């Protein structure tokens, strides 16, 4: 397609070979970490290293092959980044299992398998992400139902004070994790339709274009839903995540910083209200400000988790203790929300920065897909998913390292937790689909076409 090249000046290459090479590196991280855990904790390479490594490699190769066939132009970096994180997370969970006598790693591997299958399924079924615009309201409604589900008596389960779980047979499931993907799609579908109304009408006040009163409806609704999650489910993290996500997408859709002003004001007032009204929010803030004061407290609130994490990370120092040499099981829930504490202790600042860089690259790649995407819906979904990852990482790792008050959220791809892992794999599938569409060359329609009018019409192959 020489004409297209001349027209656009640039055509993305598929780079599937590069992806395969990076995947080998990612596998080396995952399998190497698993071997290091065995050597560090038990003194020898685990006997099941071949079957474990083989399983992991099988999953990764399956994902790679699926991408090669159904999304050949997709971003080549995203999948290896995620594979490396997931492999590292499995190794760290396995390390904690060895000390605690639990079998979380095995369950996590099962969930990862399910996640990869859903990832492949999503890529195969969804050949064009714009199809999703049809389900804007369905998804929105489903998301709200899923969020409400834990409040239904008999179905909902309260674990560690947060009503964000539902019991399905022997399994516990966090519907919020699925809801966040559905919400991104629903927001994007809604905003791409109504962006003009939201963007153009309004009045100017102090150099900022403020939205019209009647357009405030959706944002107020979302604000109330977020507050509802906070009030009824006591889930600070999800509440923050959903509202932040909505705000970012609204701002991107309308290109009006005014929304950020309104949103931030709402967020601050909501936070202030929550702090004033709820004891558990006050406790979180107190612990954040004076963690040592509540350490080894005889009665709640306790700050042992955060203080042990700080001690552990400090003890890990620059290069870490090494697998098996630290004492990460002093941190309760080290395998889920506090997994960064375990990584900081045993892999050191080096490991923490590496993990943060991987997350940073995932967000960067997702935002890049948003930038080059040719349709508004794709841009919004990509930005939304990037924000989900960025906000979730910031909220949970910032909370664990005492940058901000602690709010319960899982660390994407690292933490033990099936719903989160599966949902995150689907997020990556959506991002790959959008980037595949964006990087795909524009179909060659010039030359043969007689009518000049058609030159400007883009036809998208489905």
């Amino acid at each position, binding site marked *: 397609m020489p004409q297209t090249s001349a027209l656009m000046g640039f055509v993305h290459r598929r780079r599937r070979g590069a992806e395969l090479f990076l995947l080998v590196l990612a596998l080396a991280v995952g399998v190497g970490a698993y071997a290091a855990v065995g*050597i560090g904790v038990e003194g020898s390479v685990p006997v099941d290293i071949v079957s474990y490594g083989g399983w992991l490699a099988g999953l990764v190769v399956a994902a790679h092959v699926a991408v090669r066939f159904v999304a050949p132009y997709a971003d080549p970096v995203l999948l290896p980044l995620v594979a490396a994180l997931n492999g590292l997370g499995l190794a760290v969970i396995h390390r904690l299992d060895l000390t605690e006598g639990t079998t979380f790693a095995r369950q996590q591997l099962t969930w990862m398998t399910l996640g990869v299958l859903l990832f492949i399924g999503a890529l195969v079924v969804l050949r064009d992400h714009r199809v999703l615009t049809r389900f804007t309201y369905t998804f929105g409604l489903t998301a709200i139902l899923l969020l409400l589900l834990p409040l239904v008596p008999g179905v909902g389960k309260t674990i560690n004070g947060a009503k964000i779980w539902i019991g399905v047979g022997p399994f516990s499931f966090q519907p919020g994790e699925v809801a966040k993907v559905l919400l991104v799609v629903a927001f994007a579908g809604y905003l791409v339709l109504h962006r003009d109304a939201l963007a153009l009408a309004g009045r100017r006040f102090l150099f900022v274009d403020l939205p019209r009163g009647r357009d405030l409806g959706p944002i107020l609704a979302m604000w109330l839903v977020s507050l509802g999650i906070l009030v009824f489910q006591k889930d600070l993290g999800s509440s923050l995540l959903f509202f932040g996500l909505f705000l*970012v997408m609204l*701002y*991107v*859709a309308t*290109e009006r910083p005014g929304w950020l002003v309104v949103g931030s004001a709402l967020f601050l007032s909501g936070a202030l209200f929550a702090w004033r009204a709820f004891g558990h929010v006050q406790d979180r803030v107190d612990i954040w400000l004076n963690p*040592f004061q509540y*350490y*080894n407290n005889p009665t709640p609130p306790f700050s042992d988790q955060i*203080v042990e994490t*700080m*001690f*552990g*990370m*400090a*003890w*890990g*120092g*620059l290069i870490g203790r*090494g697998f098996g040499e*630290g*004492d990460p099981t*002093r941190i309760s829930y080290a395998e889920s929300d506090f997994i960064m504490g375990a990584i*900081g202790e045993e892999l*050191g*600042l080096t490991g*923490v*920065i590496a993990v*943060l860089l991987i*997350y*940073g690259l995932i*967000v*960067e790649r997702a*935002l890049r897909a*948003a*930038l080059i995407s040719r349709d*508004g819906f794709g*841009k*919004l979904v990509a*930005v939304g998913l*990037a*924000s989900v990852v*960025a*906000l979730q*990482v*910031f909220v949970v*790792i*910032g909370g664990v*390292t*005492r*940058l901000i008050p602690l709010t319960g959220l899982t660390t994407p791809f690292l933490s033990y937790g099936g719903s989160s892992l599966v949902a995150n794999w689907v997020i990556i599938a959506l991002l790959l689909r959008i980037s595949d569409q964006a990087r795909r060359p524009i179909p060659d329609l010039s030359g043969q076409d007689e009518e000049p009018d058609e030159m400007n019409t883009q036809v998208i192959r489905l």
Partner: protein
Amino acid sequence: MNKPIRTISMFCLLLFVALMLNATYLQFWRADSLDNDPRNRRVIEAAYSRERGAILVGREPIAESVPSDDRYEFQRTYPIPFKYAPVTGYFSFFSQTAIEQTQNEVLSGEDPRLFVTKLVDLLSNDPNKGGSVQLTLDPEAQDAAYEGLDALPGDVEGSVVALDPATGKILAMVSLPTFDPNKLASHDLDEVTSAYERLDADESEPLVNRAIAKTLPPGSTFKIVTAAAAIESGNYTASSEVPGGATYRLPQTSGESGVIDNEGRDCGTDRIPFVQAMENSCNTTFAALANELGAEAMLKQAEAFGFNATYLEDLRPQAESVFPEDMNPPETGQSGIGQFEVRSTPLQMAMVVAAVANNGIVKRPYIVDEVQSAEYDVLEKTEDSDFSQAISSSTAADLTQLLVSTVDNGTASPAAIPGISVAGKTGTAQSGIDDVPPYAWFVSFAPADDPQVAVAVMIESADIPRGEIAGGQLGGPIAKAVMEAIIND
């Protein structure tokens, strides 16, 4: 929509940079203070489980880690507990003291000097082993000091310190009463707590290392400092005549309390030879000399020997020996015989005689001789260093002459060693408290012509009738035994 996407990118970048800076702050800048937090169980448990290096005296370990089959991998043991406890200190789950504390980085294997060994361990996946610390103590001198002090009747409270005058090496350091560090290093933490509480509540203070951590009036042994100041002033030599007399009235005083006498020793009238004044430990002479020299000169001389300062880096806590500032004439007179508010640790008085023995140069005392790797390769050997030139070498020679004469013909005779010239001085210091008996002191060095060892003995209390307490009778034989242990080595 690309412009807001770029803005959001910048925002995300900020979030990630904030996370990275915070992690760096936590794991790099704040790491040390968090690691040193006493509540940090990780550091303690790891130190507790690790094979900690040995503390060595001669070839023998006086503290070592042996494999243990309970919850921790190693148990710290002290094979010769009571004799060395004030030096080794203890290594308990809750805290460490003395060498166990100051050399903790080496013993635990955290010291950067062990880095090469650590790297090899890391690569060969060996567990991290701590380095060893070789002490300067001489086992025979320590035995002599401990047995001599312990042989006194009753519950002895006292201390012995021996120094190598030429280097400042501490050859012996004993403090009584002492304790069993094995009890505090036990893995039975309840037992540790109760043992510690018992020791801490004991009024005889077994956990205090009296050699460095408790100051008492040095009494007549301080006359060496007064004599040093007098000879340094240029007005006196060993053969000069000094003020004498049976009594001396402190300036600006009236009545009984302002009069100093010699408790019956012969100090002549008016002027007597310096040798006689030292031999008979004439209070009248040294009180008069102190006033003649003035508070300022006395302070200068005392500080040149190490008073009002700390100098030992290897053990903590240390008490600063005190020579008061801004004294009036009666106080100055009393300070000349080591009374008023003059207070000294046994180590300080050992440094005073060691300086006389070492041509007037005060060496900085030290007790850690070598830092070794777990394989006993020497990583660092402590170099001796000068603390000060307290007196000229001619003053030192004059003082030696006076002190030798004190052993040969005077009050310090119990320390005499046949065939060897010994220099020494006794002291019996009034405690200044009615019910508390006087403190017996003895300082000496030998051989006088080629000094190898300087000793200070301090007996705070023992089961001895008040009237019989005298530095020479009690401390002299102990000092003699310690000196012999070194010289006959």
